[in-house]
Structure formats: C-alpha cells, structure tokens
C-alpha cells in the first residue's frame, strides 16, 4: 500500500495532469469569436494597448466594418458623446490581458488565471477535507463545460472575471478557516489579496459586485463578532484596502472615459440587458436545461446546499454541536456554508431575472450563450458538490466524477466547434484553413 507522501504526490500529479489536459484542449482548438462581446473585447484590447480608452467615430467605423467582414460586430461599443465611443463593459479584464497581448500570447492570460483558480480551490478543499477531495474538486472545477468553453474564448471576460472572483473568495474562506493559526502578517497579506482579487472580479464584470457585497456583509459580520468577543480584528482593514484599490482605479477609469466616476458604459447602451422579476419565469423555462448541460454537478451541488444549510441551521437553533456528525458537514462552519450559499444565490438570483436570457429568441441557442452568465458561481457549486461526493459510496463518487469530466470535454468541444455566427472563411473559424480558398479580397485581421 502506498505511503502517505506517495498518495499526496499521486493526487497532486493527477490534478496537474488534469489541468495540463484542459490547457491542451483550449490550445488545440483555436480561438473562436462567438459573440459580440468577444469581438468588442478584442478590439478594445488592441485600442487599450495603443493608449486609446475611447475611439472616435471614424476609427470605430473602420473597426466595425473590419469585424463585420469576418462575421463579427462591436455591439459592446457605445456612443458616449463628443464623437467618442467607449466600451460598455467593465475594463478590468482588458487591463489584465494587456501584458499578454503585448507579448503576442493573449491565450496565456486565461491559462494563468485557470492555474490560479485551481490552486486556490485545491488549497481550500485540502483544508476543508483532504487531498483526495482537493484533487477531485480541482478537476471538476476546471472541466466544467462552461468554464472550459469560456477559458477558450480568451477575449470574453466571463472566465477572467470568474477566476478573479473565485481566487479572491477562495482565499477569503481559506483565511476564515485558518484565522487562528496564521500570523498577523500572513493574515494581512491573505486578506489584502482576497479583497483585491474579489474587487478585480467586479471591476472585470460589474454584476460580480453583488457577490462582492455578500463577502462584504460576511466581513462586517466577522468584524462585529470579533469586537463582541474581544477577538483581534486589526487585520480586517487589509481586506478593505484590498477591496478599495481596484474600485478606486475603476472610478478613475470611469471619470476619464465617461466624464464622471459614477457613470459607466451600461448607462449608454440599448441592448436588452436589464434585470426584473418579470423575467424569472421565462428564465426558468429557457435556461434550466442549458444550466444542467453547462454545470453537470448543479443538482448535486443544489442538494448539498439544501441539506447542509438546513441541517446546520437546525443544529444551530437546537443548540447541539455538529462535530463528528458527517451528515452535517462539520468541516464547514455555518457562517461559511451561508457565505457559499449567498455567493451562489447572488449569481443565480441575479441572472434568473436577466432580460437577455428571458428572450424567446435565445432560448434555442447553444447552451453556452445562456449558461455562461452563471459561471461566477462555479466555485461554490463545485465545493458543495465535492463535499457531498466525498460522503457517498466510493463507486458512485468515482462514477460521477468520471462522467462529469467526460461530459465537460465533450460539451466544451461541442461549444468550441459550433460557429453559428462566424462565416466559413473567416480567420476566426477554426477550420477555415482546411476549406478551399474563397477568392481574392479577404483581408486577414493582423
């Protein structure tokens, strides 16, 4: 029987191999420009790299017609007055991507974030449970179909914003679990990093601010509880500083682009991107199947959340201790269980009221178009699913894990190889080099 260190090495090797396999999948199928946001972000990255946070009408017209020639559009660029056009979306991901763009390797941006996200998830699950759970959880995280598909779309902000959010949230939870063991310095660094990454997640996608708010509420709760119990709370300002820095940079950007720190791109657009409870029923109807395809562990995670939180809440009100009772997930304190639930609820609660996905015309579209909005919830879903899987019979856990990974690969491939919007001979069509030449006059971008 292998000794402990061999087993640890095995789990870490499996995780590393899995991550490498995921990277190979992403790189083997070339960059695919699927939606308007991919095109908009690609041009925005180029423009930002030249120091142009906005563009004038002439340039944006040229870029639009160039993109249109290859089947794309710049729907995320809007007119903001004074012959200037700006990006509606949050700019955080573009600024992150710039260094990789300068070295002509933008795809590395996604891979670095993926590696970071997996490392944080591994660390967290190792702390919560053991190395086996960490290995399983990391693989399930990276092979989630939506995660793989969005990782491959290097110019879309969904994966980047999710990765920042997951790293920040994961580090924060890790700190909460280890608070008593860490030195003040280590705590401060951890909290600052958590805050910074969480905020950068919101600076990369405005809607992630709701998740950051959930963490802020938990932080406030921890602070107050610390004050009441006369515990040391001096490290918490590190997180507040970490949160503040990206938001301050965002305000500077918004002031430069829109003329006021409190104005942002979505205030100028005409797209159906609102939120209202009226869209809830339609979203349930149209999005449910896409979610099941994009997040195969959704049901497992949902059950885990319900059973875990319900059990813990009962225990809390009964005054019993749940230590030693495996059904109550004793490794997960009640406040962390609620935090994870709040994180998932913030994402699902928001996007189940989203106007765009409640539109009947998108209801039959590929799953990635509907499911990608829920990607920010991938870490809490994976954590909940893994904590449940480690408690079911081993055969079932292995079967579910294997099936999920195979499912992830197949549906990533399906998403990456289907191109409803890109014309056959566009250079952004992965198979365009294998098609017979269309004729003269096709100008390749770059």
């Amino acid at each position: 029987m292998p000794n402990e260190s061999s087993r640890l090495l095995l789990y870490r090797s499996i995780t590393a191999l899995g991550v490498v396999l995921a990277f190979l999948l992403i790189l083997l199928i070339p960059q695919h420009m699927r939606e308007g946001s991919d095109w908009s972000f690609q041009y925005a990255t180029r423009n930002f790299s030249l120091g142009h946070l906005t563009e004038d009408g002439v340039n944006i017209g040229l870029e639009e017609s160039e993109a249109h020639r290859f089947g794309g559009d710049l729907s995320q660029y809007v007119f903001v007055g004074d012959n200037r056009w700006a990006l509606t979306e949050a700019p955080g991901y573009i600024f992150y991507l710039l260094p990789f763009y300068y070295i002509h390797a933008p795809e590395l941006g996604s891979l670095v974030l993926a590696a970071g996200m997996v490392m944080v998830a591994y660390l967290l699950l190792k702390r919560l449970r053991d190395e086996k759970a960490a290995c399983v959880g990391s693989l399930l995280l990276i092979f989630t179909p939506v995660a793989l598909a969005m990782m491959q779309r290097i110019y879309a902000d969904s994966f980047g914003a999710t990765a920042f959010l997951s790293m920040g949230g994961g580090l924060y939870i890790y700190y909460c679990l280890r608070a008593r063991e860490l030195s003040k310095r280590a705590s401060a660094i951890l909290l600052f990093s958590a805050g910074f990454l969480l905020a950068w997640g919101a600076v990369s996608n405005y809607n992630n601010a709701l998740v950051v708010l959930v963490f802020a509420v938990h932080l406030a709760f921890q602070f107050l509880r610390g004050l009441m119990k006369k515990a040391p709370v001096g490290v918490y300002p590190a997180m507040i500083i970490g949160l503040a820095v990206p938001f301050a940079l965002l305000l500077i950007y918004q002031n430069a682009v829109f003329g006021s720190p409190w104005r942002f791109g979505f205030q100028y657009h005409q797209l159906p991107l609102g939120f209202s409870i009226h869209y809830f029923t339609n979203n349930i109807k149209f999005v449910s199947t896409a979610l099941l395809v994009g997040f195969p562990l959704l049901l497992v995670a949902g059950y885990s959340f319900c059973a875990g939180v319900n059990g813990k809440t009962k225990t809390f009100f009964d005054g019993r201790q749940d230590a030693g009772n495996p059904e109550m997930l004793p490794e997960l304190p009640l406040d962390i269980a609620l935090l994870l639930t709040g994180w998932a609820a913030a994402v699902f609660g928001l996007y189940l009221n989203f106007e765009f996905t409640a539109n009947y015309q998108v209801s039959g579209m590929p799953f990635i178009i509907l499911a990608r909005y829920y990607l920010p919830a991938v870490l809490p879903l994976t954590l909940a699913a893994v904590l449940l899987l480690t408690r079911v019979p081993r055969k079932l856990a292995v079967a579910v894990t294997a099936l999920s990974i195979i499912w992830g690969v197949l549906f990533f491939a399906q998403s990456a190889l289907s191109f409803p919007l890109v014309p056959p001979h566009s250079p952004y069509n992965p198979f365009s080099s294998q098609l017979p030449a269309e004729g003269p006059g096709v100008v390749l971008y770059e």
Partner: protein
Amino acid sequence: MNRMTKVQWAVVVLAFCLLHLLIFTRVFYSGGPDVQGYYQYAEKINQGLVAYRDFKVEYPPGALAVFYLPYLASGSLEGYGTAFTFEMLIFDIIGMLMLVGAARRARISEWFALIGYTLAMVAIGSIMVQRFDMIPGVMTLGALFAFSRGNYKMAWCVLAIGTMTKLIPGLLAPLFLIYQWKQGGWRSVIPGLAIFAGVILVIVLPFVVHGSQGFIASFTVQGRRPLQLESTYASVLLLLGSLGLTSAVPVQGLISFDLASPAAGLLAKYSILFVGLGLLLVYGLFYRSLRGMKRDEAGSSHEMLAQLFNYSFAAIVVFMVTNKVFSPQYLVWLYPVFPLVSGRFRPAIWVIYITISCLTWYIYPLHYYDLVDTRQVSVDALILRNTLLVFLAFLLLGEQAPGTKTVKEPAVISASAQAE
C-alpha cells in the same frame, strides 16, 4: 398496527388520492393525437370490426380493452378524452394503494413511497393522461405486489395480462422465475409458468384465429422500425454530429421521427442484440445476488423483495437504454415501481429519475420541433437525458447483493430523511 394508525394512514392515502385527482383533472392536458387514435380503435370495435383482421393495430390485444372501456362511458371524442383521463386516474390510484402495501412488505417507508409516487407523476407531466402506458406500469406493480404477498399464481396471471397490454411487463418473467426457483425449487415454478402461458393463450387465441397475419404484423412492424430520434443510439450520433464527426439528420418516418445517419441502420439492426445482452446481464446479476441465499431464507426476506423490486426497475431501465425506440411515455412504465427502489444509491436514483422525467417533458412536448431542427439546447437536453438514463442503469446494477448490506440507508441523507 393499532386502529388509530390504520385510520391515520387511510386519511393520508385519501389525501394523496385527492391530490392525484386534482392534478390529473386540473393540471394535466388530456386528449392529443394518440387519444384520438385510441378513440378510432374503440369506434371500430364498436362497429363490430375485428382487430388485426379488419383494421391494423400496433399494440397487443389487451390494449384494446383499455381503449374500449372509456368508449362505453362516452361515444364523443371529447367525452372519450375525459373518460380516458379518469381511466388512467383509477389505475393510478390502484397503483398507489398497491404501492403502500408493497412498500410495507419490503420495509420501505410508506411516506417515501407516496411522496416519490407523486413527485414522479408531476415530473412526467401530461403524458400520463395522453397515453395508456400507465396501465402496463400499474400491472407491473400489481404483479410485484401479488408476489410480495406470496400470491404467485395471481402475480403470474397479472403479469400475463400486463404483457398482453404492452409487452414490457414480460421483462419481469425471468426475475419471477429465478425468485420462485430460489424459494421452492423448479417444481414450484411450473404452475406459475403454466398460468402465464395459459392466460396469454386465452387472450391471443381469438385474434390469431381470426387474423393471424395482422396479429403477427403488429409485432413485426415494431421490429422493422428504424432508429428513433430519442433513442440512446440516436443521441450518441447527434452528439458526434454536433462535433462534426458524422452526419445525423432527423427525418419523418412512418410512425415517428427517426434519425438518418451512416451508422443508424447498423445500430437499429443490432440493437436487439444489445437489448438481449443487457437483459441477460440484469437477470444474471439477480441470479447471482440470490445465489448466496439458502432456500428457506429467501421466502420471507424483505431484503429479497427489495432486490426483486430493484432488479425489476433495472430491467425496464436497461430495456429503455438499449432499445432503438424511446418514446416519452416509456417513463410511465417506471413510475409505479420507482418509489420501491431502495439501497445505497436511492437518493441519487430519485434525483436522477425526476431529472430524467423533467428533461423528457422539456423535450416532448415543449421543444420537440426544436429537437427535430437539431437546435443545440434541445439536442443537448436529449443527450443529457439519455446519459442520465445510462448512468441510472449502472447505479441500479452496481448495487450490492443482499446479505452484504444491500438495503442499508445511505448516510448522506440528512435533512430530507429527518423531514419524513
């Protein structure tokens, strides 16, 4: 059980019956093209025409009684639809009553059984009253119920009638054989087999005498069907098609929407082999699970009953997975037996079955023409549904044999078990 408990249970069961009545009559949409087809059969029977000879029938003879009964209540199509709904409801309630009895004998929680029965009904949806598959499903349960009470002759008789309504209940015959053999040796099997064969003969003989060609054709036409669009094989081809590895195009067939693909013909032709192998696996595993039991132990063991229920469910699931045709109403066959499934994987099986039912409802009737147009989400829903069904089959067959803690409740159930 004291008098108060019996009364309480009677009230609970009555409440569930009323809930089913409400859902069947107020929530589900009755009627549809299949009910119209049943009405036409009933009309022809009423006109004195002989089935299989004077008009084609694609079902076994027992189904004709199912189609004709509502016609006695109303001769108009609209009235027929309502009467058909009530016919399904009556069988549903009969099923519920038998379910409670069978659950009690197998020491499965009656509450779980009733809740599961109701959840499954809601998840399956209106097709419960738009097809007649409830009846073979309830007959399957009826045969299992009679078996659980030791009334083997009745069990074989009900099984035979069910088989002559739709062939599916016949899948349980080898399981009954193995079970009875284990209990009382080969001699004890003979009366049951004789009853089974005799009842089938009694039902079939008049139709064979008057219209043998039509009668045989009603079976062979199913065998000649191409690969149906919703089958497991079709979903594999559709997945490969979406990856650009093959072509897979839905086409309108004579009976249903089928799939045209280079491999479709081959898969349809050899599917019978997979069906046979799959069922042999189920029967083999059931036999193996009984092998370790002594004969006198097998008789009254609730564990053995639980195994029988599990393998009955598994046999139907395996058939559905390996068959070249998968119509949405096939899920109704599983519905009455589903709450009796037990074992380590029961929570997972429950969640998977309910999800499969919801996805089937999503595919048909909600997005069937999206599937025919191969719109990706609908295709993905089909692939997901069939993947879960295959996974369900593996879970069922992966259960341990009795005597090795088969029906032990899994530790993962916490809040839901406490809510019971």
